[in-house]
């Protein structure tokens, strides 16, 4: 009984941790897809962000500088993707794969010297300070980036509904004809959305290297940037749903480590595959035959 409670607490705590990179990448992907483009390169932005954040934090001694630098690195990578896709006859999916490889490659190349040294990490906020059990208190140690991510989700939701820029992004993403008739700058809007989306993905990377697991190495990301694409489909392109979806994926990701904490040794590594299984299941459930997805931006290349 006690071990079951441990597993549940560990999963709850783990889902808060594991979900944060999912949350940032999916918000970024949601922003980009709302403008009618897909950016698979966010996986690259995530890894590059992780490396840049760790390196900056090590060099300057300030983890928050690292977060900012990660966002900036993502902005550059996404901006480049957006600029290249503005040219005619460039496929955003193929270009995204190229940027995924480029982003991780650059990160590995420049990140080599930072694998060994330890940089200052972002401290968590101890919401569990009133608890006596150190195990529970530790579980409620919440990263400020998680809170920032949830705030960003609500901000994005508000942005899409009540700001000129947000509505313009939705128009460009949903109906190219309408955007042309209104005289909106389609490519510029998508460039902006792709750049800012990748900046969010970069912050997600900063969480990986500066909060949890909290180190820099080449095996840091396990495909969160790609799974975020499925997550956005699951969240029906709604930023607030992205929070719930990220928590679900986070809980799945925390399953393996939580079982390990109670000494569950047989086949626990199978449970490490839980997020991928969830991704598969989500995609199969949401892609029922012959139906178009509700809420999908009309100009998305996978939907046309």
């Amino acid at each position, binding site marked *: 009984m006690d071990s079951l409670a441990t597993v549940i607490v560990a999963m709850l705590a783990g889902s808060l941790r594991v979900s944060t990179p999912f949350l940032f990448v999916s918000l970024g992907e949601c922003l980009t897809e709302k403008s009618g483009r897909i950016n698979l390169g966010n996986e690259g932005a995530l890894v590059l962000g992780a490396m840049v954040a760790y390196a900056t934090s090590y060099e300057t001694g300030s983890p928050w500088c690292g977060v900012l630098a990660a966002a900036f690195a993502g902005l550059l990578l996404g901006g480049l993707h957006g600029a290249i896709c503005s040219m005619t006859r460039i496929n955003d999916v193929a270009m995204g794969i190229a940027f995924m490889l480029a982003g991780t490659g650059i990160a590995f190349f420049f990140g080599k010297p930072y694998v060994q040294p330890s940089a200052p990490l972002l401290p968590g906020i101890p919401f569990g300070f009133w608890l006596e059990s150190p195990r529970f208190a530790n579980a409620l140690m919440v990263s400020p980036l998680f809170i920032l991510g949830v705030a960003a989700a609500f901000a994005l939701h508000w942005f899409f*509904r*009540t*700001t*000129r*820029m947000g*509505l*313009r992004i*939705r*128009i460009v993403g*949903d*109906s190219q*004809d*309408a955007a042309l*008739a*209104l*005289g909106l700058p389609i490519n510029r809007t998508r460039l902006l959305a792709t750049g800012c989306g990748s900046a969010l993905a970069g912050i997600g990377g900063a969480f990986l290297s500066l909060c949890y697991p909290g180190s820099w190495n080449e095996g840091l990301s396990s495909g969160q940037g790609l799974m975020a694409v499925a997550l956005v489909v699951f969240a029906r392109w709604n930023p607030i749903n992205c929070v719930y979806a990220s928590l679900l994926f986070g809980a799945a990701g925390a399953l393996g480590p939580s079982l390990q904490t109670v000494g569950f040794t047989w086949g626990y590594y199978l449970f490490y595959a839980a997020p991928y299984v969830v991704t598969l299941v989500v995609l199969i459930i949401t892609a*029922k*035959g*012959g*139906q*178009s*997805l*509700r*809420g999908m*931006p*009309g100009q998305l290349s996978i939907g046309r």
Partner: protein
Amino acid sequence: MNDATMHAIGVEAIGIGKRFGAFNALSDVSMKVHPATVHGLLGENGAGKSTLVKCLLGYYRADEGSLLVDDKEVTIERPADADALGLGMVYQHFTLVPSMTVAENLVMARRNVPGVIDWRSELAQLEDFMRGMPFKVPLTVEAGSLAAGERQKTEIVKQLYLQRRFLVLDEPTSVLTPQEADEMLGLVRDLAHSGQLTIVIITHKLKEVAKFVDEVTVLRRGKFAGAGLVRSLGPTDLTAMMIGEPHAPADPERLGAPVNEVRLEVRDLRTANDGGRAGLSVDHLTVNAHEIVGIAGVSGNGQKDLLEVLGGQQPMQSGTIAVDGTPYGATRAESQALHVRVLPEEPLRNGCVPGMSVVDNLALRSFDRGETKTPRRWLDRAGMAARARSMIQAYGIRAPSAEVPIGVLSGGNVQRCVLARELDGVVRLLIVANPCFGLDVKAVAETRARIMAARNAGTAVLLISEDLDEIMELSDRIVVMHGGKVVHEMPAAGADPQEIGKHMLGHG
């Protein structure tokens, strides 16, 4: 809105010329539109109507000629210039953003949208504005969920909201039922005659012109072909101006009555519903030999799904389809065995491989079968080319050569190719969708005559069309679809378009 801006404006185009490369789209065309009138701009497809209005609205820059707005010369180089003068246009393909509400669409169409939108005050202002409108549209509904008629009204409301005083409507009634069309045109005419707005309607429907239009300008092949008051012009004058001949081609002759022999029988057909849109739910539908059954309906009421199921482009969920009493699943083997042919809408997209040659496309139905219907493994290229030559000749297909990709042919010639291929050999059941969309008067007459000839020869024809006049003209029996269901069935002889329209809207 202040009253000074609330007056209709007159527009005059003088000697407009526009070239696209070596092609003269317009030469020396003039049009005078008096303020507060409904002006009809008539002409066949390709006559230059849209080019002319696009020059007026700044989408194209005219090579020659001048524009007067309220008798003052103006230069319009960009859509924004036309916008500033109060000129606007409602396109045939609507430009509302489907996933946004009507209110969001209206506000975002404005030029000066604030960075952060205060929806409470905007909605209050919109409701205020809507009270002064002749027709109401719901503000908080997503534009994509509106019916075609409602969307058309929303587009017009949007133009009024943007304080346009001169409005071009491009084929405004092509997606409406007769009732909706009459209502909308009546309202638009009242707006014009009350002095608020000047209207130009691009159309080829002479009935509408006679009923709602004050004056017309007619174009033919990029040139001015005539103008005048509708009161003093008869339909024959207008036809003569439009096609250069006094009489429209005669209707194809119908020979013999339908035979009581069921060729196509559809029972309890259901398809999945897609994102809130209801799927098909057709309980019973038959087509007899020697009969054309016309399916009428506002677009988006299941006609396309029915075509896709019968043509093999969409699976059905349940139900049975039988051709000549044999179950039919629209596979290639079945369609070859039972002699079922399909003339789909947008034939280049749905019935051709654009990158393959005319010869190959003409052989798509038969290339894998020998004379004796045995499977063929090696293509008979010489035979294919010979058959293509005879089809090209028989159907008057104009192509630079039979070896060019079919995608380079004009729409009318692609249509002829597909028609030639689908009517080749024995045809027991022919399924046709919007066969005359985008064709000129002569090609329309030719296509309809071919369909009628097939029927006269005993083929069962299922005709799906958004053009009610076409259905009334060709059909022996009319079936009305609404919301994926067959809601009414009647013999075509003596059918009343108003009655059909009522069923198309789902009341009746």
